[in-house]
């Protein structure tokens, strides 16, 4: 097996034992990336930076001063500002933009010695669940069971595809309504959205600031723990980042969940869910029970309102955040016709630069924030959000340690399959994931097996605020019980 297929944990140990150099490890990923263009996962490749970072990592490893992520080759979602390297959020409006500064997350990863292989495809401004709103065209799921090319999910679809196809050892993702967990489930990998405030948002192109949170996408739960450790922590440059200690996440993976209480929310049994997903959920319950946990039926009475609340709050925040793209300070500016003033410049720049879904969300947000509708939509949605959060607080106060739920309402669908669907039908993809964002809770997707079509399916665990360690330990138990080791056959 070539080194690009390794886990982060295996590569870390091999690097420290001197069995491989960071340069060779990086080269094996760069080779896989060049052979993986059919997946359209890497949209800006940075081999020179990668090799330079790998050489520096080798020196640190030799000197015995190597943090866990030192020499580990990663893909970076196009949403993270990387100094001097194209950062477009998969939007034409940021074409040509090369940030003059580094996001806190990538800065921390580089300080830890990690290697950046390039930037990864995603839905435009992280708005989407299929990667089809990307200005680069969609990334493709490495899992293929018939003639159809399938979506890797979204918005972190390029990240999920790249990890599943072994183009990198891990990738950064961001999750505003499920954008780490849904693509992880669709591609058969692990992805965790941490508690809101655990990871700094500084330098991450903003979609909906009260919901956005970055996290790792990896091949195993252990890798997620190692990777998250390097991303997490207080940052003075993000006023919503929490100034609390970051525990040792990898040390939390004891595999012992005896006596833990797992909540099964009855509101997540929604109509029209494939029987296979339901059966998988039951299987997950059995696995956790067999490991000594207690399974408890719980109620989250407002969960059914999470999706409409999300689709008010997220566009509202987006319409405000995306007001900055005006053709003045960075990115695209429309060519002016004679007589055009500054208003035409704004309007044409934004019409040309934003794709249709981004435009729609900006306009929905503009509408729900406009005079006369602010209370009816935006304020009401924020009140419902408070109730959704309270439901979780009550469950945790009653002693629940983690909540088990499906990650997605289906396995990966074909690219183009949703072309005729209404926006609302597309939004239903996020039905199981948005609650965690609204409540600020950590959530993790774990691959469990293949459905009858041969496509990966995942389950989701939600945890108490700041208990990513405990959450990952539950995920670790599921991972070991499920024993999911299948890999996609290489067709690309």
């Amino acid at each position, binding site marked *: 097996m070539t080194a690009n297929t390794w886990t982060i944990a295996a590569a870390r140990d091999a690097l420290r034992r001197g069995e491989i150099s960071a340069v060779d490890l990086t080269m094996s990923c760069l080779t896989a990336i060049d052979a993986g263009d059919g997946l359209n996962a890497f949209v800006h490749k940075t081999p020179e930076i990668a090799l330079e970072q790998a050489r520096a990592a080798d020196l640190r490893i030799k000197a015995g001063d190597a943090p866990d992520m030192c020499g580990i080759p990663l893909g970076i979602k196009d949403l993270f500002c990387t100094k001097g390297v194209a950062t477009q959020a998969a939007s034409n409006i940021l074409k040509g933009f*090369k940030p*003059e*500064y580094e996001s806190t997350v990538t800065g921390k990863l580089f300080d830890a010695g990690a290697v950046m292989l390039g930037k990864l495809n995603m839905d435009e401004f992280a708005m989407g669940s299929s990667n089809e709103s990307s200005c680069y065209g969609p990334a493709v799921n490495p899992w293929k069971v018939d003639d159809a090319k399938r979506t890797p999910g979204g918005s972190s679809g390029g990240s999920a595809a790249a990890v599943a196809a072994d183009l990198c050892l891990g990738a950064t993702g961001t999750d505003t309504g499920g954008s780490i967990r849904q693509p992880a489930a669709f591609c058969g990998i692990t992805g965790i959205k941490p*508690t*809101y*405030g655990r990871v700094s948002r500084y330098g991450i192109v903003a979609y909906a600031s009260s919901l956005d949170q970055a996290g790792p996408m990896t091949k195993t739960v252990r890798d997620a723990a190692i990777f998250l450790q390097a991303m997490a922590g207080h940052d*003075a440059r993000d*006023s*919503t980042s*929490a100034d609390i200690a970051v525990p040792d996440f990898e040390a939390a993976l004891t595999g012992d969940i005896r006596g833990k209480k797992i909540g099964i929310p009855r509101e997540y049994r929604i109509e029209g869910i494939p029987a296979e997903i339901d059966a998988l959920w039951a299987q997950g319950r059995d696995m956790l029970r067999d490991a000594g946990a207690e399974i408890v039926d719980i109620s989250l009475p*407002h969960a*059914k*309102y999470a*999706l*409409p*609340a999300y*689709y*008010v709050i997220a566009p509202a925040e987006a319409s405000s955040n995306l*007001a900055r793209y*005006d*053709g*003045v*300070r*960075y*990115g*695209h*500016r429309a060519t*002016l016709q004679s007589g*055009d*003033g*500054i*208003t*035409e*410049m*704004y*309007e044409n720049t*934004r*019409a040309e630069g934003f794709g249709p879904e981004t435009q*729609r969300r*900006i*306009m*929905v947000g*503009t*509408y729900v924030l*406009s005079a006369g509708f602010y209370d009816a*939509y935006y*304020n*009401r*949605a*924020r*009140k*419902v*959000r*408070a109730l959704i*959060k309270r439901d979780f607080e009550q469950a945790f106060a009653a002693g629940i340690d983690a909540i088990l739920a499906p990650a997605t309402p289906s396995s990966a669908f074909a690219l183009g399959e949703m072309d005729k669907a*209404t*926006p*609302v039908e597309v939004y239903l993809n996020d039905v199981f994931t948005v609650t965690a964002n609204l409540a*600020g809770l950590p959530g993790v997707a774990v691959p469990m097996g293949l459905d009858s079509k041969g496509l990966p399916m995942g389950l989701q665990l939600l945890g108490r*605020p700041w208990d990513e360690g405990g959450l990952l330990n539950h995920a670790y138990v599921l991972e070991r019980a499920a024993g999911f080791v299948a890999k996609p056959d290489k067709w690309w």
Partner: protein
Amino acid sequence: MSIDIDTARKVAKLARIAVPTTDLPALAEKLSGILGFMEQLNEVDVEGIEPMTSVTPMRLKRRADVVTDGNIQAAILKNAPDAREGFFAVPKVVE
């Protein structure tokens, strides 16, 4: 709540996105569908509930009121589509 063509035009204007007149009916229909979906929120009893404003209960940190950044004009202007003489250039705003 149904969005008519005039409302769609007004929202596009507020959002500073040029939408051709011929595209307004389709836009109005899509926006109506999305807003119709949100009508469900009216079923929820929100009497006495405060709108959620902070995701995690925390007090914003304070810091000394001092300059911590600056003197980076070139970096600020680096990505501008049109920068001249140390300024962002835009079409004439005042006649």
